[in-house]
């Protein structure tokens, strides 16, 4: 391709910028971290808690996903496709919105506690370890279900026919067909969820807290924000980095393949469990899972509608900030993703995933502090970190199609002598419209819902919408918080829908 040297230098520039932006903060953190002695007992407690809650969250997510995925794999019912699509929704659901929904169901005055009180039974509190695990299961049960469902659908239909013609008992069928698949897929799913939960910040911030329920990420935040002990924050950052890297490498080795799963609408025709108890059990599992996932969302909508009218100027300003941050980080992310949409580029992108947003934020905080007031840079830094965090997902979506475009048309472009700009404008961008729209939608939604770095940097004048929801919750303005949360939900799902639709509209050939 005439544009190959240009493409390569663009890729190298993009990769160099990413490595500098990721490694710079890490180096800043490392140089700042002084002596191991500064860790307090609370920090060790945070480390233990982080590992414990990740283990429990991953365990419950995977174990509960097994019957749900099996039921979805072998039952056909109205709304099955919709339910499977909804299993993808938690990925772009803002954490703070889910937390509000869960509080509405499981909180002090939530549906469950009210029901228990009505029955004269003792209530329970959602705050603490079980609340954190509950929220993580809410987010990751769908992911585990999708991964396992993929495994189930990957079992060749012939095997089930063979099993049926041999008349295998349900037990024998499980042992010969399903157990091997589960042994292959479940460890990978467990590892992925474990890694995700290791970096949990927003959930721990809202449902955890206190010395007994603090994650390392939350401890970093507290060290910077409340104690202004940068040395300790740096040390904690290094611990978090090692933790995430080690667990991430294990997860990569156990690899489960793509999580965006195409073709989950298929269904396996099976001859077992068509009647009787299995059928009832499957229906119960599906209903329970749907109830668990949909009730909190329904509560957000129900409680948020009256709250929408109470939104103050602060919330609208925060909403505006969120939208501009999301737009900027989406553009930035795609500008990075296009030149890096190659095999080695995807590895570079993973770097952003390995380093936690709070570590990045702390490092950037340390770097900019000598030159400017970090608080005034809260929004640009959030934009940057959001783009980096979304990059691996954008690359996962774009790379296969970008490589196909190159494989199909690079020679024609070379033969015609297309200029790099013409290649980009006339071939690459139009051919990639669909995946670009999907990637942009994910990035925008992730960015709008992000409650991470912004909490570290923000001052009262510069909030994003998730932070605003958190602040309203903190000052017990629950109705306004519910309204802002509904607005946030509309924004993130709306942004995803708009971008994804934009990519699909008027696409021919």
């Amino acid at each position, binding site marked *: 391709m*005439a544009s190959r040297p240009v493409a390569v230098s663009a890729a190298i520039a993009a990769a160099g910028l990413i490595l500098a932006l990721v490694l710079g903060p890490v180096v800043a953190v490392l140089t700042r971290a002084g002596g191991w002695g500064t860790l307090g007992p609370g920090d060790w407690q945070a480390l233990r808690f982080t590992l414990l809650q990740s283990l429990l969250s991953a365990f419950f997510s995977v174990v509960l996903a097994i019957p749900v995925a099996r039921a979805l794999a072998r039952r056909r019912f109205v709304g099955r496709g919709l339910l499977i699509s909804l299993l993808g929704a938690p990925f772009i659901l803002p954490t703070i919105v889910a937390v509000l929904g869960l509080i509405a169901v499981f909180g002090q005055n939530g549906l469950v506690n009210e029901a228990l009180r009505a029955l004269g039974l003792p209530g329970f509190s959602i705050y603490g370890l079980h609340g954190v695990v509950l929220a993580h299961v809410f987010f990751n049960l769908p992911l585990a279900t999708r991964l396992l469902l993929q495994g189930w659908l990957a079992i060749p239909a012939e095997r089930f026919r063979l099993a049926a013609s041999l008349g295998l008992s349900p037990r024998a069928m499980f042992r010969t067909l399903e157990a091997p698949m589960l042994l292959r897929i479940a460890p990978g799913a467990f590892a992925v969820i474990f890694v995700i939960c290791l970096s949990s910040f927003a959930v721990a911030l809202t449902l955890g807290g206190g010395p007994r329920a603090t994650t390392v990420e939350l401890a970093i935040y507290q060290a910077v924000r409340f104690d202004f002990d940068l040395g300790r924050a740096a040390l904690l950052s290094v611990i978090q980095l090692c933790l995430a890297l080690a667990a991430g490498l294990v997860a990569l080795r156990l690899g489960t393949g793509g999580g965006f799963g195409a073709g989950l609408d298929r269904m396996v025709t099976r001859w077992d469990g068509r009647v009787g108890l299995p059928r009832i059990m499957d229906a119960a599992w599906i209903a329970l899972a749907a109830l668990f996932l949909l009730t909190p969302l329904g509560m957000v909508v129900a409680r948020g509608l009256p709250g929408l009218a109470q939104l103050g100027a602060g919330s609208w300003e925060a909403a505006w900030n969120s939208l501009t941050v999301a737009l900027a980080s989406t553009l930035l992310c795609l500008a990075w993703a296009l030149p890096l949409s190659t095999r080695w580029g995807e590895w570079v992108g993973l770097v952003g995933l390995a380093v936690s947003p709070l570590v990045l934020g702390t490092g950037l905080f340390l770097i900019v502090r000598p030159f400017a007031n970090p608080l005034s840079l809260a929004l640009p830094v959030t934009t940057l970190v959001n783009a980096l965090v979304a990059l691996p997902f954008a690359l996962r979506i774009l790379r296969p199609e970008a490589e196909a475009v190159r494989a199909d048309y690079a*020679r024609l472009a070379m033969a015609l002598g297309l200029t790099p700009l013409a290649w980009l404008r006339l071939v690459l961008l139009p051919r990639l419209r669909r995946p670009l729209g999907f990637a942009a939608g994910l990035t925008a939604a992730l960015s709008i819902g992000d409650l991470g770095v912004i909490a570290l940097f923000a001052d009262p004048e510069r909030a994003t919408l998730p932070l605003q929801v958190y602040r309203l919750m903190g000052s017990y303005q629950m109705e306004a918080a519910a309204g802002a949360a509904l607005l946030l939900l509309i924004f993130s799902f709306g942004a995803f829908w708009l971008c994804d639709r934009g990519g699909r509209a008027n696409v021919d050939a």
Partner: protein
Amino acid sequence: MLTLEKLRYTEGDYSLSADLTLPPGRRVAIIGPSGAGKSTLLDLVAGFLTPRAGRVLWQGRDMTATPPDKRPVAMLFQQNNLFPHLSLARNLGLALRPGGGRLTAEETHKVEQALERVGLGGLSARKPGALSGGQQSRAALARVLLQARPILALDEPFAALGPALKVQMLDLVQEVAGELGALVLLVSHDPQDARRFAGETVLVAEGVAHPPVDTQELFDSPPEALRAYLGQ
């Protein structure tokens, strides 16, 4: 005169060597077993591959290091000869303006003329998906007309067409090449194509592209390597 001078290309265990000369304006078939290197030979001529040793010359000028678009070669690939999301007018326009800029009125007229020449008059606003396979091949040929290069390299572009349509297209290639006075290199696995279309044939077998011989003679008394391929 296209000269492949002591050309050698290797990739892993595979190697191809060629030392031959092809005069301008001829029609030459390149045949041989699959995997022998027919397409490799074409890619070396068109500039998509770089030889390990030797030179590629056109009219005595060394073009071994020249990029594909600067070579006197227009190429039709097995597939993907048109961008599916662009209209025929824009596809063909890229042959005149590789930067993707607007065409002048004169250039637009040239595009229309080329389309008319291959029997696609009035279809310039269509996208390739709205055309039949044969029409797509015609549109690709119209692009070759616009490129007006003295060498025309065809890498089995009509393999997916039915027999009658393929004959039609080969006739059209013959006309187009005649108008351009171009040397045509036709890769094919079908001996019929060679007999019908090409006066001379280059046999590629066992890592060697042999110098061209008269097609009729070649098939009347095939050498060992060709006999094995033809199954005689």
